[in-house]
């Protein structure tokens, strides 16, 4: 294996942990040190510097690894420790994972922030964490060699111990920790070749699962503190509205209600427990000022999008699509629409804050620790080191938990009442005050040549922008990823391609939702491609295969999924297949859905999924994330719709915003393409292809293309 220089070695530090252990981390520069709010680490440091810990080995052989990404079900609490443990040659049975505190050193290199999203955890920490593990192995080997007075080269590390080849002597890592802690950081380390991996690529049991089968896993809503009060907030149902007159007399007389306070998002009822808070909230008499959005509804929003669809900014322009369309032998046009969608994390939004005059502690299921830290500093005026962010388990995230609204609720309420407060949203709050996956309106056009092959493709998108959601006056950008991802990167070899985007914001807040714009654009492009195939008399699989000549990885997953799903032979009587592919977050996914229609409803029986996500860390987690992303996408394909009337969200709970249920879940098969490419994302890429795979199967069954989600026959 090659010896590689330790990147940013000047920041890497080794020191003694409490109790004579080895601690490996990163030294913070001065500014970072000033920002550091990591009391535990500071205590373990020797005073000369403030290392930020990645791993600690204690004399009892336990390897504690800090996980800087949030665990929201996607398995980072196991996958990230695997990166360290692999290079450390740790004994996996002795590895423990814990959540990292807030600290700039824990920033995901892709964002430069401590943040979880965009399927970036493995991609972002891939090198950093492996190096931290390799540094550990190196100093443990050196410590053993020194102990025995032998050459380092004659020592060998494996499964948590170093052994000496000739003498047969061996020492556990725990026994070497104290000596290793006194050694300098090596100039360079060995990083393993993939062929040398013993952990990466193996299905390892998840470290968080035991606590998730006995009720002990601590979610944000489970936080317990002495003197903790619970609050619920009444918000103006109309977007952009505000509190007018309030009569809280009845609310305050509810047993258990302590206080009623006005905060920026509405009226917080603070009580001894949630039940009292909720009853108090129901007893509030409030006159809302609905504001300018009072008459907004879905039809108005759609009409505005349709009006603007042709006036977008061009983001991709290959060849001359307009001319090719104008002179086309055969031309195809269609309008595709998708609705707003709520995230509907199983755990409603919540946050606990304890704001005091000289400190602020926040316990929160968040995907964005750095943002929480900044929010708290801004609201309290406290310096960085007085604000501590404690990450809990997240009961789902899907992008919703990167937002700050629930954090602001807790900080403002705690400050107003002078006590630690947990703000818990109701399910109705959660559905009606989300940052929604954008509703978009799309005009598609294609030109076909005499052989039925597409020669031009035009996709005009209109919808709100997530990345520029607050900047209503700025010019649209044709390459705004938050609206064009999945459309701009159309992978097919079509000579003339034009993609444009018109940004049309409304009062409805929009946000990042599992797989972002690919969630809708894969549906739109992959379904329109099936229309093109039908018009040209081509098989949907064969057409894709022909158009993916240059796209080896996408083509390989397409072929694999088709083969596993028996695309070449007819489906059982009454069953129909649909196929779709999508590249997102540096991973390549193809899915085949097998569908029947009964009682006017599509039923999905089987989904075959092939993924190439580069090198694999934990294959069982990859399979689980594909299953998860498919179920998540099926809810959107078959059920999900947030509609607007009178400036507010019509839906409120699972009766009118239903989720796919147990008995509706298809059999799901996942096949992983072996690869030595750099790792791609895993949490999101399984979602984009499922809606079009199902919709294309419905098209095959009925002969009518599906141009709108959710699918309604």
């Amino acid at each position, binding site marked *: 294996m090659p010896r590689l220089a330790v990147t940013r070695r000047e920041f890497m530090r080794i020191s003694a942990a409490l109790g004579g252990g080895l601690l490996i981390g990163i030294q913070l520069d001065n500014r970072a040190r000033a920002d550091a709010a990591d009391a535990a680490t500071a205590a373990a440091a020797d005073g000369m510097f403030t290392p930020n810990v990645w791993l600690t080995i204690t004399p009892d052989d336990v390897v504690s690894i800090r996980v800087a990404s949030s665990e929201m079900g996607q398995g980072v609490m196991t996958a990230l420790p695997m990166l360290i443990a692999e290079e450390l040659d740790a004994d996996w049975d002795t590895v423990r994972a814990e959540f990292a505190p807030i600290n700039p050193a824990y920033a995901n290199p892709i964002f430069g922030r401590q943040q979880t999203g965009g399927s970036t955890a493995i991609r972002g920490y891939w090198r950093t964490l492996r190096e931290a593990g390799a540094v550990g192995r190196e100093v443990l080997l050196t410590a053993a060699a020194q102990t025995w007075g032998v050459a380092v080269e004659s020592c060998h590390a494996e499964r948590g111990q170093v052994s000496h080849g000739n003498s047969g002597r061996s020492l556990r890592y725990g026994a070497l920790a104290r000596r290793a802690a006194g050694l300098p950081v090596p100039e360079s380390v060995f990083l393993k070749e993939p062929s040398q991996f013993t952990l990466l690529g193996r299905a390892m*049991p998840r470290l968080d699962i035991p606590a998730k089968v*006995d*009720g002990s896993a601590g*979610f944000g809503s489970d936080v317990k503190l002495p003197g903790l009060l619970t609050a619920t907030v009444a918000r103006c149902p109309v977007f952009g509205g505000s509190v007018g007159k309030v009569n809280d007399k009845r609310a305050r007389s509810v*047993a258990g209600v302590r206080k009623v306070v006005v905060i920026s998002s509405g009226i917080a009822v603070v009580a001894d427990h949630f039940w009292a808070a909720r009853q108090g909230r129901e007893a509030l008499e409030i006159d809302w000022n609905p504001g300018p959005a009072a008459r907004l509804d879905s039809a108005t929003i759609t009409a505005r999008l349709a009006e603007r669809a042709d006036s977008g900014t061009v983001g991709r322009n290959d060849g001359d699509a307009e001319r090719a369309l104008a002179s086309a032998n055969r031309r195809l046009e269609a309008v595709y629409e998708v609705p707003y969608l709520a995230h509907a994390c199983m755990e409603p939004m919540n946050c606990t804050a304890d704001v005091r005059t000289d400190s602020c502690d926040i316990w929160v299921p968040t995907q964005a620790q750095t943002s929480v830290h900044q929010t708290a500093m801004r609201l309290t005026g406290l310096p960085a080191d007085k604000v501590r962010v404690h990450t809990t388990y997240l009961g789902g995230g899907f992008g919703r938990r990167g937002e700050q609204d629930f954090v602001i609720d807790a900080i403002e309420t705690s400050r107003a009442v002078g006590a630690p407060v947990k703000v818990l949203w109701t399910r109705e709050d959660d559905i009606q005050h989300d940052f929604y996956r954008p509703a978009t309106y799309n005009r598609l056009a294609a030109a076909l040549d005499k052989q039925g092959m597409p020669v031009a493709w035009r996709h005009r998108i209109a919808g709100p922008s997530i990345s520029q959601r607050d900047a209503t006056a700025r010019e649209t950008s044709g390459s705004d990823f938050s609206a064009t991802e999945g459309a701009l990167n159309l992978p097919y070899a079509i000579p003339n391609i034009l993609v444009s985007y018109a940004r049309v914001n409304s009062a409805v807040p929009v946000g990042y939702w599992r797989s972002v714009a690919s969630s809708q654009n894969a549906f739109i492009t992959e379904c329109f491609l099936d229309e093109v195939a039908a018009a040209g008399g081509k098989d949907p699989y064969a057409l894709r295969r022909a158009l993916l000549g240059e796209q080896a990885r996408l083509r390989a997953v397409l072929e694999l999924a088709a083969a596993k799903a028996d695309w070449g032979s007819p489906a059982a009587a009454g069953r129909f297949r649909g196929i779709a592919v999508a590249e997102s977050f540096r991973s390549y996914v193809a899915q085949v859905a097998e569908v029947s229609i009964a009682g006017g409803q599509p039923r999905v029986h089987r989904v075959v999924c092939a993924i190439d996500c580069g090198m694999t860390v934990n294959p069982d987690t990859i399979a689980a994330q594909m299953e998860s992303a498919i179920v998540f996408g099926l809810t959107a394909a078959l059920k999900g719709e947030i509609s607007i009337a009178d400036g507010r969200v019509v839906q409120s709970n699972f009766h009118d915003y239903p989720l796919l249920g*147990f008995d509706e879940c298809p059999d799901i098969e996942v096949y992983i393409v072996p690869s030595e490419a750099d790792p791609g994302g895993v949490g999101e890429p399984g979602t984009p292809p499922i809606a079009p795979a199902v919709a294309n199967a419905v098209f095959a069954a009925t002969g009518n293309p599906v141009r709108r989600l959710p699918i309604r026959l």
Partner: protein
Amino acid sequence: MIRLLVNDQEHELTADPAMPLLWVLRDLLGLTGTKYGCGISLCGACTVLADGEPVRSCTTPLSKVSGKKITTIEGLPKDRSHPVQQAWIEEQVPQCGYCQSGQILSAVALLARKPRPSDADVDQAMSGVLCRCGTYPRIRRAIRRAASIAEKDA
């Protein structure tokens, strides 16, 4: 004063008899393994067992369960040796984990009633418990596995 028997422990409470069992468990007794998901009997996250039967604790007033034997997720063996817990670990079911107390207790009740459930039995018992993370395929496998673990143990 209302008496409540939870996980074989007796409690005497001076709470409002109309208070839902969910909030009694979570906020008065500190048993936070039982989760709030919808509050109106739509998701099953709050499922606990009352005399072995699954009930939605979010809409079950305290007065209705006084005198019944309540089992929450914390009432399963601490060493996670219940066949359902073992199977859940072996099949690596949970993702975010938030719905899992409701899933596990629903499965416990099902297997107590039908040690060898048919697919239709499983559908019927589990369909009301929503999982946003999509752990359904693994739940189905885990229930089969739990049934065979229990059979071997018996």
